[in-house]
């Protein structure tokens, strides 16, 4: 895993960047922080990501998940068991619409980025950081505190079918996760109850305090029926969901 860390004396901020981890890029921007303090946070984050990716990456034949999926292991490590437990904990809460087990295979694709962003959030808070922006692949974002020159962190949601900006979002101590089909990539979300692929031109954006809730729900709302949507909204009452049928 290749990571870059830069400190801007002039702008008084740090930027940590990983070109590729868990299949995408990871960025963390922290304004108004001493370089050495930021460096320690960044190093810790990198080590967590590297370790988790090595455990969970189902496309890496050496990872525990890949070996389990290939039937090469009889038992799971304690660490992986915790991940499975966390994932499966969401199954009843999402009416079975979210699961890390599909077709007998483990897949943490819809969970891991959310967990990583939550880890980043907790890490930053534990070090007394008040403001920071965490972006995992553009689809899992957390705005801690606010932009140094504004009251929140503002991002806009782009239409993957080229229709421009769908929505402006303000994040203040708020996580955002998006799921959806794009013109070149359709059918990657599968309903664990029916085995059906979601093929609709839909984009779901969820805002939640907890990055993992946001991550899980953005997937669940992609495939939920109108009745299921109502039930989900009831059981996750504090989240805000935007569904775009494009």
């Amino acid at each position, binding site marked *: 895993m290749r990571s870059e860390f830069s400190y801007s004396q002039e702008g008084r901020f740090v930027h940590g*960047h990983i070109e590729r981890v868990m299949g995408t890029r990871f960025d963390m921007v922290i304004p108004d922080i001493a370089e050495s303090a930021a460096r320690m946070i960044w190093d810790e984050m990198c080590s967590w990501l590297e370790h988790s990716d090595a455990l969970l990456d189902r496309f890496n034949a050496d990872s525990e998940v890949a070996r389990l999926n290939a039937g090469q292991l009889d038992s799971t490590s304690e660490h992986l068991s915790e991940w499975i437990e966390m994932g499966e904990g969401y199954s009843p809460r999402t009416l079975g619409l979210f699961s890390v087990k599909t077709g007998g295979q483990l897949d943490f694709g819809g969970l891991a*980025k959310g967990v990583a962003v939550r880890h980043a959030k907790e890490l930053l808070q534990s070090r007394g950081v008040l403001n920071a922006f965490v972006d995992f692949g553009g*689809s899992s974002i957390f705005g801690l505190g606010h932009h140094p020159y504004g009251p929140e962190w*503002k991002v806009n949601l782009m239409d*993957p079918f080229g229709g421009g900006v769908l929505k402006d979002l303000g994040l203040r101590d708020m996580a955002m996760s998006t799921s959806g089909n*794009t013109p070149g990539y359709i059918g990657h979300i599968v309903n664990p109850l029916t085995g059906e692929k979601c093929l609709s031109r839909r984009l779901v954006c969820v805002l939640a305090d907890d990055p993992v809730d946001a991550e899980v729900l953005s997937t669940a709302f992609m495939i939920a029926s109108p009745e299921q949507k109502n039930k989900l909204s009831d059981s996750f009452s504090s989240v805000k969901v935007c569904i775009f049928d494009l």
Partner: protein
Amino acid sequence: MKESVDLSKRMFLKTLGSIGGGIALFSTMPWLKSCTPEKLAEIGADKARVALIGCGSRGQYHLTMLRGIPHAQVVALCDPYKTNLRAASAMVPGAKLFDDYRKLLEHKDIDGVIIATPLGSHAPITLDALSSGKHVFCEKAMALTMEQCKAVYDAYTHTDRVLYFCMQRMYDPKYIEGVKKIREGLVGEVVGMRCHWFRNADWRRPVPDPSLERSINWRLYKEHSAGLMTELACHQLEVCNWTIDKMPSEIMGLGDIVYWKDGREVYDSVNVTYRYSDGRKICYESLISNKYNGMEDQILGKKGTVDLTRGVYYLEEDNEFSGIRQLLAQLRDKTFATIPAAGPSWRPELRNPYLPHPIVTGPVSVNAGQSMVAAENDGSDLILSAFCQSCITGEKAERVVEEAYCATLLCLLANMAMEEKRLIHFPDEYKIPYMKF
């Protein structure tokens, strides 16, 4: 006349004025030294007395250029095909007319010849012209066979005459500036090159009499032509070598006649891979029954891509994390705005739109690659002007012949690889000291 002098000066300044770099530029691109406006001023009112051998479409294009070059005077024309000779003669009425170039070469009042004949005759005419003491400007490619190329190169190393091959990209501002910026690290380490030339046309000219088929449509027959490689790829391969200052050591490829099955002998579809000793490759493709992809010379770097044909470059970072980049810019500028960051989760690596950045400021002439004769402002005018200047000063243009030799060899070796369906290692007997493998 004042206006014409200005035209030549303008050609040079248009090319290099915007680029700058002065002496540093001349040390890396020394062929430009021989045609500076200062040297042009030194020659005063002198004129190079030049003759055109080969008065077809490309030859007539050179005549058009020559009429705008004040230090050139076209004194003779030669073509065995009367229709072409007449057309050229109408463009330069006072010029003496010949149907045999040997007769033309006997005339002492000719300083230099411009050869725009079919490829098969480049080497014999060049060699004869040098032996008769003429300066020579010859169209690319250098010659039809590797033996001929070597003979021309050997003659060049022994002659005091000036020799140019029309490698006009070496005189094209967007290429000069592009190569300069690549070497300065614009797109990081160069990791590969992709060049292609697509057209959708049969490559034929109308033939008034069937007996003239092979001489008018010479590009289609192996006795005169080496096909797409020498006619199109030659320039592009030259650019690749020039950019990274190396020569590939291995060549493989596949060639076929896919669509134009009209009796032609040369391929209408070629896919060739050149490998340098460090593993970098040129991926070359040409097809003349589909023009969707047009012509491009792409230099691929770790941090970006330069499309020399269009005079633009693209940066990987623009595409990869533009939202974050905008956020960082805001923090630097102490401003607050929305970041276009969020979109659905990761997707496979499709080709996403990149933002083009211009290599040179001001208008750029882009060759769409569809003309069979020439493109505008592609350096052809300046290289011809440089030749005429050299005819007067006797100053050679460094590296032009070497670059033409290297590029032509690569074209001919690709044909060999395609015909013999095997991986070719660059043959030792055709290596020259200029080449770095």
